[in-house]
């Protein structure tokens, strides 16, 4: 495939699409509204289509695991493919909004999802244990601030020593918020610079890096 097809056409599509979407946001041009709506719909259709790629990839990867009897993996792969088939059959033949489909979804995915989410607390606790060790000056600051936040969030301590509520509120609204905003402004500027590089075709990492000859 020629370099023109592989690089220039995608870059042109990115640049034109970006300009149209930005024009719709900043300018009152009646013609851009429907175009942007269409572009968004294309995005949704492409995403749905890409899901097919994902399903095929899942099927190939797990079929391989089963055929190779991958250690510690292949029984789970059988289970995954079985569940994939159950969801596909129920979804296609009874409907994704049917009571049966919703029951399977709520009884399996919702419960498991909530379990994984709640396990975050244990991971945070172990991370916290490692973080709150006074190894250097920065770690000491982290230890002090972390301890204050812990004390404030313990109901008995907050009730007995309301000063900790005020300290925590100040920490949250002044140093934390200002640091967060600094990061946010920097990130926004970085995203704009990335956008400019992408639109003018300098940032082509998402298409594969350029060789010296192509620069």
């Amino acid at each position: 495939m020629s370099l023109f097809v592989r690089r220039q056409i995608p870059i042109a599509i990115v640049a034109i699409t970006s300009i149209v979407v930005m024009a719709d946001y900043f300018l009152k041009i009646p013609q851009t509204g429907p175009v942007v709506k269409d572009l968004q719909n294309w995005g949704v259709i492409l995403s749905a289509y890409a899901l097919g790629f994902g399903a095929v990839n899942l099927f190939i990867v797990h079929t391989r695991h089963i055929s190779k009897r991958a250690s510690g993996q292949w029984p789970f792969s059988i289970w995954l493919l079985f569940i994939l088939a159950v969801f596909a059959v129920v979804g296609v033949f009874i409907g994704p909004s049917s009571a049966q489909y919703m029951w399977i979804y709520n009884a399996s995915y919702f419960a498991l999802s909530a379990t994984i989410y709640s396990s975050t607390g244990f991971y945070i606790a172990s991370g916290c244990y490692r973080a709150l060790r006074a190894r250097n000056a920065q770690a000491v600051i982290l230890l002090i601030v972390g301890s204050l936040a812990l004390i404030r969030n313990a109901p008995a301590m907050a009730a007995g020593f309301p000063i900790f509520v005020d300290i925590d509120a100040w920490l949250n609204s002044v140093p934390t918020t200002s640091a967060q905003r600094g990061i946010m402004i920097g990130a926004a500027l970085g995203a704009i610079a990335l956008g400019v590089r992408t639109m003018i075709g300098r940032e082509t990492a998402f298409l594969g890096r350029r060789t010296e000859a192509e620069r």
Partner: protein
Amino acid sequence: MLVAGRIFALGMLIALWIFIIGCMEMAKKKLPTFRKLAGLDALPEMVGRAAEMNRPVHFTTGLGELTGTVAPQLVAGLAVLGYLSELAAKYGVKIVYTVYQPQVMPLATELMREAYVRAGKAEAFDQEDQIRFLSSEQFAYAAAVQGYAERERPAANVMIGPFYAESQLFAETFFRVGSIQLAGTARGYQIPFFAVVCDYLLIGEEIFAAGAYLSKDPMQGGSIQGQDYGKIIAWILMFVGVLLTAAGSPAIMDLLKM
């Protein structure tokens, strides 16, 4: 013609574009100097460690998708994936990219295949094994990544993109299996989790600079200098805004609402 309330933002955007493109042009003559980004400089060391241990390298862009406000973070992550794939191919290390959004798969496939071709190892690239779609549901994806980490125990883990509640699950699990870790996100709430657990960290804008930093392309480097001029403008606006607001003048607020 112009949408009310967005005029100032448009003006700022155009000013930034001028700065960025101007700096990119100037960088052709003189490359600006950059501070070192330890996390990106450590990538060869991370892949080298994986080669020594004969274990894979894991890469994820988190819950990144190509549409929406987090798309730039995903693109920034893909820039690092390309570089990392080429390194992995050269060192003969398997790199596994676990995918959350299947729409990213064609991009990642092209990107990684090209990286392997550039390294002269095209035949070593196994698309199905190295680009694995896990799930488009947040915690199903998180559980699958944790399962992958426990089973294959990668020597290095690189996470660049938008992360949410799964950030701590990933960082802790890979820490437990002994992976050396680089994490980067522009989502402020997740940065502390990564800072506590990971060996290297890219904060906010650093992930967007990663592609330019790794490419060694003077023009891309110049764009980062242009971005710094944007910071100077932001500083001036904040300083003037604080002074005017303290003096009781709503001028700066009126300007921002234009």
